[in-house]
Every structure is written in structure tokens, then in C-alpha cells.
């Protein structure tokens, strides 16, 4: 039974700056949520708080009856497995092959010795190959991750997230370092996972057209606060101008990475 993710008055301060300032969100299972905002708006910090890569200064994060912000040890690692994370810079191990990189997604299930020996079961390898197949990466399975293109590396990262069998997938600017064609592949991959597996997706974006094209719900942040939370059709240019000013609207619409243009052309 999938649960919903709740952020309750969550804040994170770095010195005097409030990276995330009193954010409350309620995300039902299976939703595809886009978080938009300029760099420094607190989008990344919010995702890292959810995955517990950093801890909140105040507030609480809940998933069903699990109090995420209080988890420790094995329970915390199980939570990280349940909410897979994808990074802008992919965060793969360049010198390991693609298969091992994907199997890193199974580490939360492995004991100390088999993990240190890099020993995985046949079932796990099958899972990894199936995940790679969904992202059209089977031919690259034995290549070193560092030799792949950016778009391929990001899809390896998604395959790794998939073998974690997560309930939630967090993606921190997954397409910011990719060209439009690869950006479309990655976003389509995330959408397929959301629709076919019913996994909640929370993705940070900095372009409006991508957010509008893929998301069920858009959350706009500014200076650590949530300024807008609603459906894509509610987020009109007038609303964006209200939140970010005329300059902000231009910035979002003219940002270099755009999936929509390619999607229309293709």
C-alpha cells in the first residue's frame, strides 16, 4: 500500500542563509511533481533533505507512518533505497562497468562480506539487465561507465535507481547537463517509470516548458519558500511573472536545455 510523502514546516539553514524556509508539501503516491526555481532557490537542498543526504534544521518529513527525519542506521539506509536519487552530474563510478554501477542500487540488501567482494546473485544481475533493457542500454552493460555519453550515464543512473525498487524517485536537475535529444530520452524514461510502475517522481527543473510537458503538478520555489503549488495549466506566464518578475519569465523560457522543442520536431 503506497503512502504519501509529507513535508511539515521543513527548514534548513546554512549559516545565516535559509536554503529551505518553512516548506510544507503533501505529495500523494504516483504523482509526477516538478520543482522549478532559479539556481539557489533551494530545490536541491529540498531533495537532499528528503533523501536525508542532509538533515533539516527544523521540521519533519513523514512517509506514511515512517518519520523519515528520525531514521538511523539500517532504517535510514532502507529509506534511501526506497527513495532513489538521480543527480545532475550522474554520480556514477567512472572506472566500474555499467553493470556494477547498476548493482550499486542493490547494496542496501547485501551483507558486509558479499558487498566488499562485489558479489551479487543471479537474480540481482537479471534485475539489473532488465532495468538496463528498459533504458536501451544492454549493449553497453560491460563498458566502463566513464566511457559513456552524458545521456547514457544519466540513463544508467536511472537503471540503478530502478533496481532499488523505490517508491519515490528524486531527480536533481537530471537534464541540466544534457543536450535536448538526451534530455528528452531521460525525461521520457522518468515518465515511463512513473506511469508503468506507479513510482512517485519529484524532479527539479529550471525550464518551464519541460515542467509543463511532463509534470502533473508544479511547485515553484524562490529563496527557499514555496511560491506556487498547483497544476501546470494554473502556472500561466502571468503567475510566473508575478513570482519571478519579467526577467525571471524570460530566464525560464529561454533557458538552454529544453525538451519540448525536440519533442515537437521529432
Amino acid at each position: 500500500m503506497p503512502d504519501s510523502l509529507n513535508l511539515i514546516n521543513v527548514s534548513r539553514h546554512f549559516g545565516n542563509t535559509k536554503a529551505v524556509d518553512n516548506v510544507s508539501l503533501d505529495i500523494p503516491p504516483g504523482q509526477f511533481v516538478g520543482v522549478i526555481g532559479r539556481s539557489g532557490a533551494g530545490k536541491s537542498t529540498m531533495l537532499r533533505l528528503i533523501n536525508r543526504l542532509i538533515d533539516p534544521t527544523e521540521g519533519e518529513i513523514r512517509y506514511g507512518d515512517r518519520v523519515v527525519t528520525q531514521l538511523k542506521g539500517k532504517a535510514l539506509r532502507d529509506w534511501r533505497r526506497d527513495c532513489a536519487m538521480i543527480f545532475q552530474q550522474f554520480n556514477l563510478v567512472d572506472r566500474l562497468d555499467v553493470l556494477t554501477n547498476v548493482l550499486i542500487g542493490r547494496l542496501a540488501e547485501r551483507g558486509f562480506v558479499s558487498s566488499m567482494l562485489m558479489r551479487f546473485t543471479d537474480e540481482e544481475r537479471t534485475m539489473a539487465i532488465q532495468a538496463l533493457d528498459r533504458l536501451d542500454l544492454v549493449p553497453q552493460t560491460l563498458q566502463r561507465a566513464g566511457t559513456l555519453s552524458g545521456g547514457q550515464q544519466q540513463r544508467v543512473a536511472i537503471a540503478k535507481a530502478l533496481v532499488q525498487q523505490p517508491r519515490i524517485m528524486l531527480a536533481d536537475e537530471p537534464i541540466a547537463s544534457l543536450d535536448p535529444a538526451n534530455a528528452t530520452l531521460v525525461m521520457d524514461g522518468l515518465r515511463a517509470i512513473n506511469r508503468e510502475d506507479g513510482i512517485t517522481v519529484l524532479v527539479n527543473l529550471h525550464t518551464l516548458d519541460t515542467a509543463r510537458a511532463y509534470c502533473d503538478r508544479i511547485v515553484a520555489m524562490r529563496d527557499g519558500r514555496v511560491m506556487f503549488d498547483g497544476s501546470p495549466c494554473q502556472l500561466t506566464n502571468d503567475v510566473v511573472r508575478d513570482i519571478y518578475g519579467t526577467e525571471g519569465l524570460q530566464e525560464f523560457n529561454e533557458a538552454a536545455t529544453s525538451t519540448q522543442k525536440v519533442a515537437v520536431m521529432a
Partner: protein
Amino acid sequence: MSAIAEMTETVPDVGPSAFTQFERDFAARRRSARINWALGSALFFMLFFASAWIGDFFKITQVSLPDGTRAWRWIIGAGLPRLGEYVEKTLPVLRWESLGADFAEWFWRWKIWLKLLVETVLIAFMATGIGVIGGFLLSFPASRNLTPNKWVLFITRRLLELARTVPELVWALIFVFAFSVGPMAGVLAIAVHATGALGKLYSEVNENINMAPLEGVKASGGTWFDQIRYGAVPQVLPNIISYTLLRFEINVRSSSIIGYVGAGGLGQEFRTAMSFQEYTDLSALFIIIFLTVAVIDYGSEKLRHKMIGMGERA
């Protein structure tokens, strides 16, 4: 207004004064650089002179002249001929007519020396093995970016420092006292010192790695050990292999002298030769060690370059 527009607009007005300002600043910088140089050099030579003074480099000593009288001489001038005398004593008598027999006499203990040479290399090999394991395991908690907390960092760093500040010869004396004379004491002595030295080198490698892969492992639910095994080890492995081979060379040199205090290997023969005043044995031993170290140097350098090449291609 863009930065370029600003420059093109303002340069013609303030141009000449900007150049004068630059010339003034430049001259000032040159002047201060020259003063710093002069001060630095003066300090260096003062320290160097003081060290030489304390180190008896200017000592005047009494020497006996050939006619039996005593005279005062500068220590370096008086000592150099004696150095030549010592080297001359170690040279064997080699005649063309009886070269084979002369060589046989020079290397008369070759059977024992060969056995001890093998022992020397094996001591170095085993000590390097233990040192690599110890240094590798301790290098991760001793790296500022990887350590689980600052106490572990502090303790492992002090431990590694202790292991490498105490010289091998001193460790050997301790282990000979504890475990009696023999190669085991030598292995332990070199292993402890190598652990300290390698742990330090490895941890410096660890501190230069890219942390993003470790974050990726952590975000998937990996433990600290998983992050090290999957995120850090693949990145540092080529450097680790390279430093290990370098350490093996150093350890062969150490193990060839460590027998002097009874910890196995060729070193004990130096002591025997010196106390029995078998000076030609010293030159024979020197040649044996020199050749062994040269061969190992050459071999491990070839291997190391191959490894580094592999690392770069990856």
C-alpha cells in the same frame, strides 16, 4: 551595460593615467619581490652557516704528519685521505693471470650470501605485503574527506605517524628483543614502518578523489564501507599500485641493512665483516646489494609505468 561596453567607453579617457598607475604598481611589486628575495637568501645562508658550525664542519683537528710531528689541520682536508684509505682497504686484489681464483677469493662466502640475499628480498616482499594491507585499511579513516568522524581521523593519523617516525632499525631492535634474532623481527620492523609510510601516501591520494560517486552510493542506501569500496577504491587503485611498487624498492634497501641489528638478511654479514676486519667482504656485499636493488628498481619501474599507462587509458 555589459562589461565590454563599459571598457571601450571609459578607456580613452583614463587611458594614460591607467598606464602610469600600472607602471607605478609594477615597479612597486618588483621592488618588494627583490627585497623578499634578498631577505630570504640572507636567512637561508645564515641558517646554513649556523648548521655547518654546529655540525663541526669548521673544526680544526690535530693530525700526525709523515715525519711524526703533530699539526693542526681543517677537519675536511685531514679526513678526505682517510676516506680514500678505507675504500682502498676494501678493494680486492685482482690479477689478470689468476682472475678466476681472485674472484673466488673475493666472493668466498657466496653460498651464504646468496642464501641471505634471497632472505633479504623475501623479508622485503612479506613486509611490503603486510604494510600494504595495514596502510590501505588505515588510509581511509585517516583521510579528511572520508573519515567517519574526527576522533577516528585523529587516532588513525597519530597511529600512522608513530609507525613511520620510528626508523626501521629501531623497530628492528625492539622486535629482536621481543622475538629473538631472525628474519621475523625484520619483517615486522619493516612492515610497521611501511604501514605508516604507505598509509600516509595512500591517504593523500584518497583526499584528492571525486566525492560524487560516493554520494551516489550513499544515496542508494550504501554503508560507509560500501561508499569506500565502490566509490573510492576504484578511483585510487592505480596510484595505490604505483606507490606499493615504489615502497617495495625502498623495503629491499631497508631489509639489506636491518640484519646489522640481528633482524635477518644480508645486513648481519656487514657486521661480521667489519668486526673481523674482512674489508674486501664489504665491497663484495656492496656490489651484491647494488646489483639487486638496481634489478628491482628497473623491474618495478617498468611495471609501474605500465600500471600508470593503464590508469590513464581508463
